[in-house]
Structure formats: C-alpha cells, structure tokens
C-alpha cells in the first residue's frame, strides 16, 4: 500500500513541471493562437542556464536565485523571438506557425550542444531539500514534496494574476476575442509580447526546477513537448485549470501505467488523449470554439493540369533522371534512390495537406508501417519481394484507415495534434513491443532480391515507382474525387449543402495518402536493409511537412521539387557539418518567413508577373484574399 502512495506522490511531483510548461503553452495559445512547438526548447534552455548559474552562485540564495534568474533570462530570449519572428507570422496559416517554431526547436537543439556539450549534466540538489522522508519504510525525496506543493501554489498565483490584475483581464478578454480587444484600443503588440514572455517564463521555470531531479540533456525538449501537447489537448487549449488537471492525470497515468501495463505504458497516455479528443474535441476544460475564421491561403492561383509542353518537359526530366546510373557511382545512386523514395513520401502528404487541407503531423506513421509491413512479410513470412512490395503498404493503408477515421472528425490544430499522437502510439508500439518489432534494435537483414539488389537496378525501381505514384496522385487531383476533396477543404458548409459527405471524402483521402506513404516506406525498408522505430518518428513526419512546404503548399507539383531539393540538401548537410539541425532549423524559419510560397510557388508567381505585364483592367480585381492581412 505504502508503495502505491509513494508512486502516487512521485506522479504528483512530476506533474508540477509538466503543469508549468503546459500552462505556459496554453496561455500563449489562448491569446496568440500559436501552438508554440518551441516551448520544449525554452524548457530545455531554462534547465541548461539554471545548471550553469547554480554551479557559479553558491548558497541557498544562490540556488533559488539561479532558478528564477534562469527563467527570467529565457523569458527575455522569448521576447526577442516573439518580436523578431512570431510577429511576422501571426496571420500566417497555423501550419506555418507550427513549422517555424519547430525550426526554432531544431536550432536550439544544436545550440545547446555547441554551448554545453553533448553529455548529460547532473545538477546540484536543492539546498534544504536534499534528503528523503521515510514513509512506511519507503523513501520520498523531500524535493518531491516541495514540487507537490509548488504546483497548486503556481496555479493560485496564475489565478490571482488573471482575475485580479488589469493585465490579466486583458489577457482573458483577448483569449475570448482578440479582434474586439484590439478594437477597444489595447496595444496588441505589447499584450502579445508580454503574454509570450510569461508563457516562456513558466516553461523555463519548469525546466530549471527539474535539475535536482533529472539530468539535463539535449533531447529533453522533444520528450516534454509531446507530453505537453497531450496535456493541453486533454485539459483544453487555453485553460489553465485544465492544464493542471491534465498534468496530474498524465503524470499519474505514467506513474501507474509502468506498474500495470509495462508493455504499453507510453501508449496509455495517448489512448486517453485520443478518447478525450473524440468525445470532447476541445478538451476537458476547454470551450468549443466557434468555427474559426479560416486562414485564407496565400494565393488564389487556380490549379490546372499540365499543358502538353509541360508534360513533355516532365517526361524529359524523368528520362534524364533515368540515365543517372550511366555515369554516377554507387553512393550517388543510393542517394538517388533515397530521394525518389522521399518524393513518394512527400507527394502522399501533399495530397492530404494541400489538396485536402489536412496538415498531418504524424504522416511518418504510415511510411513506417509500410516499412514494418515489408520487414514482417519478408523476414517472418519469407514472401518474395514483389509480393512483399504489393502487400507491405497495406499495413500503412490499414493504419490510415483506423487512425484517419478518428482524425478527420477534427480539423486544424487539433487534427495536427491528433495525428501526431497517433504517430507516437505507433512509434511506442514499435519501440516497446520488443518481441515482435525488435524494439530499438529494429529488424535487420531486409534485403532486396537479386534482380533489384544492385544500386542501379534499385534506383530504377525506386524512380519508376516514384514516377507512377506521382502521376497517379496527379490524376487523382484533377479527378472528380480531387475536386470534391478541394471542395471540402475550401468550405465544409457548402460541400455538405451540395450533397458531399465531407468527412468520408477526407477519410478516403487519408487512406490514399497513408497507403501511398506506405509504398515509400516499403521501398525504404529494402533500401536500408532494416527497419527501426525512427522510421515512424516525429522528425520524419516533420521532414515530410518541410518538403511539401519548401516546394510550395499551394502548388500541385511543389512536393516533388521540395522533396528533391530538401533531401539532397539534407544528405549533403549531414555529410558536411555537425550542426545540420542548426542549419536546417534556420532554413525552415527562413522559408516560412520570407519564402512562404515555396520554390514552385515563387516560380509560378514570377512567370505570372511576366505574363501579365498589363493589369487585366477589371474593376473586380480587388484581391480580397490576399488583402485580408
């Protein structure tokens, strides 16, 4: 019995940090409507700076002063980030905001390694809370008790701040209707900046307070951000009480999940989240949002099929690509195969995201499922390669059918978070179910058969499949189904009013995209000869998003170009520098801020500008979409 009580108290203590970080994220989202992916990075910087300061400053005041100083310093960094970066993208589509803040996260990951080194740092214990308390012969660290008290205290302080101060009233008002607050003459800029500073302060404080409990390391950001997403989604984005309750719930689920279901402890939390999202999509304490004004796209350039000249040009490009084995070496061919596979992956996400308007943040799940499908079929069932290639992607298809059904019930940020959560579930299964998936060691020895084994043959195979997939999806874009899908993206209301079952159309698109991604994953398994949980991890999902974004979200062919450029750049960067994440992160931020139409979008714009040297001379040419801020 005593053991369970201690386990419960440990859970409560973990909840404190989680609550601090989650409440910060929630406050920021409430006012600015930005889901700050970089929140985990701020948490991590808070921990690192606190570590350095506590090493320098001595005594009780030194320790506690360091914790607060670290949080203040990070809040200052947050202010800078808000003023330099976020102010530029408040009106951008939410996908861009998520990606820009993710780019920041990548940069920070390399920066902390650069400054503090790659090793885990073990911090000092808190003065006055060094010992443990004996509880029926079980030990409870006294620092845990401090944290258990701290959580509700911070909740109380935040409550007073929001209920009793003028600033708090403004924040609550802006959470409900920021346009109205602006119309009443409140300086929005400073309100947003201050809110962001407070949110970041809380994140950094959460990080700093962790140092007596946990080692500081450079991967703590991703771990916490996923948990925080779960917390705010369960509690309700924008609700602080919700963040508290959900933080406790999630921490206790973690604490007891380990005891009860050691095999699926990670997925337990995600299952709870999925259930909450489906039953109460706005979270336990959130409020259902009035249908948000849809962020209009950046262009109103209508899509059209390729002209016959453009078709010839594409064919020529394909033929040239097919001649690569005549002059390139094996390494170049392997790189070429990998790029072709990522073209498949990118066009599959493009179909869902650009055509269907459903930005999935967990698309790698279906890529990875395709890869695992191959590994199971080839290694365990021993089927021939052709059969495997045909059947393997079915695992991606089935995963997409199940998860997609739930995911399309939601839209926007919640869709993104749910797809992310589903991808994490799949990742956890791959990671934890060691007897079947091999866990972290993966499944090795998945090699192609002789006819496809040489680099040039495999390259042709990958290139051919990539071309087929791209063409098939392009046909689908301009098929009646493609039109219906675009219709549901533009207006669900109008779609339903002309007899379209929007959710079923979106579900179908999800399954198509998932199956296609599975095809990419299947080839990837053969290319690498092995399958690992990383094949369905978050970073791969983000790779896909960046490829689509780089090419141009609002173009039809952007994904292909984006995948080629991004993957080539990525492979080259990794070979050139140890700071690939820093460069990549900076690159992502740069695209979002100065280059939001992507490569193909820019080219189209230039071509169009040349075409219309004279304005069309119509009184109707007031571009309401582009001028809508």
């Amino acid at each position, binding site marked *: 019995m005593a053991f369970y009580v201690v386990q419960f108290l440990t859970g409560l203590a973990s909840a404190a940090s989680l609550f601090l970080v989650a409440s910060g994220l929630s406050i920021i989202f409430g006012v600015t409507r930005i889901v700050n992916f970089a929140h985990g990075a701020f948490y991590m910087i808070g921990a690192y700076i606190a570590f350095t300061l506590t090493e320098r400053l001595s005594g009780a005041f030194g320790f506690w002063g360091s914790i607060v100083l670290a949080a203040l310093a990070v809040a200052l960094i947050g202010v800078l980030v808000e003023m330099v970066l976020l102010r530029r993208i408040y009106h951008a589509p939410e996908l861009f905001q998520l990606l820009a803040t993710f780019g920041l996260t990548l940069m920070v990951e390399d920066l902390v390694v650069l400054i503090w080194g790659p090793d885990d740092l073990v911090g000092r214990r808190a003065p006055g809370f060094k010992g443990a308390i004996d509880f029926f012969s079980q030990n409870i660290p006294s620092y845990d008790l401090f944290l258990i008290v701290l959580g509700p205290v911070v909740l109380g302080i935040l409550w007073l701040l929001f209920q009793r101060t003028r600033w708090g009233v403004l924040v609550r008002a802006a959470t409900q209707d920021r346009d109205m607050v602006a119309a009443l003459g409140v300086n929005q800029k400073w309100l947003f900046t201050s809110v962001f500073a407070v949110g970041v302060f809380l994140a950094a404080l959460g990080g700093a307070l962790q140092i007596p409990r946990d080692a500081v390391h450079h991967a703590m950001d991703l771990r916490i951000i996923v948990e925080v997403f779960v917390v705010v989604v369960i509690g309700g984005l924008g609700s602080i009480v919700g963040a508290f309750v959900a933080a406790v719930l999630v921490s206790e689920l973690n604490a007891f999940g380990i005891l009860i279901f050691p095999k699926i402890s990670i997925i337990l939390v995600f299952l709870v989240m999925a259930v909450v999202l489906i039953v109460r999509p706005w979270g336990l304490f959130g409020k259902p949002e009035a249908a948000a004004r849809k962020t*209009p*796209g950046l262009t*109103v*350039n*209508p*899509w*059209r*099929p390729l002209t016959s000249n453009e078709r010839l040009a594409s064919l020529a490009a394909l033929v040239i690509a097919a001649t690569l084995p005549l002059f390139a070496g094996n390494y170049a061919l392997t790189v070429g195969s990998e790029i072709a596979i990522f073209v498949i992956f990118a066009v599959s996400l493009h179909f869902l995201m650009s055509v269907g308007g459903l930005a999935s943040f967990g698309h790698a799940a279906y890529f990875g499922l395709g890869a695992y499908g191959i590994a199971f079929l080839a290694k365990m069932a021993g089927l021939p390669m052709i059969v495997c290639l045909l059947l393997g992607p079915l695992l991606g298809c089935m995963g997409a059918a199940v998860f997609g059904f739930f995911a399309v019930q939601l839209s926007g940020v919640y869709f993104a978070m749910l797809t992310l959560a589903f991808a994490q579930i799949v990742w956890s299964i791959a990671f934890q179910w060691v007897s079947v998936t091999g866990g972290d060691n993966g499944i090795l020895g998945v090699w192609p058969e002789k006819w496809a084994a040489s680099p040039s043959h495999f390259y042709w195979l990958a290139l051919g499949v990539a071309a087929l997939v791209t063409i098939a999806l392009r*046909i*689908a874009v*301009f*098929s*009646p*189904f*493609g*039109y*219906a899908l*675009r*219709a549901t*993206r*533009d*207006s669900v*209301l*109008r*779609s*339903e*009013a*002309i*007899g*379209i*079952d929007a959710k079923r*159309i979106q579900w*179908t698109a999800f399954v198509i995209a998932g199956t296609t991604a599975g095809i990419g994953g299947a080839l990837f398994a053969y290319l690498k000869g092995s399958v690992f949980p990383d094949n369905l991890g978050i970073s791969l999902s983000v790779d896909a998003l960046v490829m689509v974004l780089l090419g141009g979200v*609002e173009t039809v062919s952007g994904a292909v170009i984006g995948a080629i450029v991004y993957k080539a750049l990525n492979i080259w960067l990794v070979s050139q520098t140890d700071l690939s994440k820093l460069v990549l992160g900076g690159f992502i931020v740069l695209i979002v801020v100065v280059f939001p139409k992507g490569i193909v979008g820019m080219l189209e714009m230039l071509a169009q500008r040349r075409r219309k040297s004279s304005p069309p001379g119509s009184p*109707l*040419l*007031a*571009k*309401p*979409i582009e001028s809508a801020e």
Partner: protein
Amino acid sequence: MSVAPPLLAVEGLTKSYGGIHAVRGVSFSLRAGEILALIGPNGAGKSTCFDMLNGQNKPDSGHVRLLGEETTGKKPREIWRMGVGRTFQITATFATMTVRENVQVALISHGKQLYNLFGSAPNFDRNEAGRLLELVGMGGYADRPCGELAYGDLKRLELAVALANEPKLLLMDEPTAGMAPRERVDLMRLTAQIAREKSIGVLFTEHDMDVVFEHADRIIVLNRGTLIAEGSPAEVRGNPQVQAVYLGEGLVYDARHREGTSA
C-alpha cells in the same frame, strides 16, 4: 382541389433553447413555382425556422415534408439529394477554385461521381456548367478564381451552384444581404424568372421590404416564434398586427408612407 401533396409542407415546427421558445408551432406550405417570403423582426425565429428546413438544426417537434416525404431530422446533404438547393446569408463558395469548377463540383456530386478517382474533372459536364453560368449571367467569369469575385457575383454563383441538381425547391437565406440596391433587384428578378420557368418553389428570408413586396407571391410573418400573418403582399401590408410588429404600437401614422423602408 389537387390531391397531390404540396411541394413543401411544414407542420407544427417547434424549437426551444432552454426556456426560450425560438419557434412555436409554425405551419405553412409552398407550391411548385411559388415564391414565398419568410419575414419578421430580428429574433423572430426566421433563422431557426430556416435551419430546421435545410437540416442544419433539428426541431423539437413538428414535421417538414417535401412532396409528402419526410425531411425532418435528415442531414443537409441528404436533403439536397431530395432536390433542395440553397444559398447562404454569407456566401459559402470554394474560394481557391474557379467559378466553373465551383459549379462542376455540384454537378459531380449530382452525378454521383464523387469517388471517381480517374476521370477528368476539368472536362466534367463542362457544357452544363457553362449553361448554368450563362443562366445567372456569369458566363464571362467561368475561368476566374472564385476568391477574386465581387460579392454580388458570388451570390449569382451560389445561385448557379444551387441550381445544379435541378432542384424542386430553393431555400435562400437573405439572398440580397450585403448587396448594392441595383444588384438586389437584378438577382431577385433573375431568381423569380428561373423559378417560374422551371416551376421551382422558392422560400426566402429577407430584411429588405422592397425586395419582399416586389418579388414574393406570398408572405408569411413570424414574430417571437409564432406565425402572425400569412397572405399576399397586399394582405400582409394591410395587416394591423404586422404593422404593429414592424412599426411599434401606439404610433399614429400612415403605414403606407413608410412601406418598404422599414426594417
């Protein structure tokens, strides 16, 4: 006279939110080819009533029948399949698609080709789409991105989209809201003309009394959730209860001098 059921029959429609009775026992009917206006002051229950007809909202009790077939409780898309087209108070169109594509989507849905993955949508019923656009005077705009259109043209486009499934009934929620006076007259004239030619029943709500009295064959008036008057424009205009609702009671002046400018 005729035994055939009316195009639209509404019977005892009732809806309340908490203690507020938004709509109480509203009944009326509509014949094919007839243009019926649903009017009433703000908060009278027009929108609630309208949403229960198009499936956006479910009534607490009462029935809506289309040619004798129950539509109560059906989803908007199912009601559309039964032959009901609609336009919105604030236009809902596919902003990133061209004007023609907007109509083509409706035609694709009407032709039950929504899950056709391999056909060519740009060529789908292209002539029919063009014909519908000509009908509403938008023939010259077919290749324009919908997001570039002026508001009045969006309303016309919505009308073309609503006509794509050869509807028996058109539901138009404030069809002329947000339009210039000249455009209002044009749009309603066009609607009336199409409705009479094709024998389509039209039910519309409207705040602009000029539009109502000029184009409606018949008017029903809602106030505080109940139907207070029904009849030809002349009858409704002369109804003291309607005048009281629109002009307030106790004021003594000749309503005829104010007609058309109220609301």
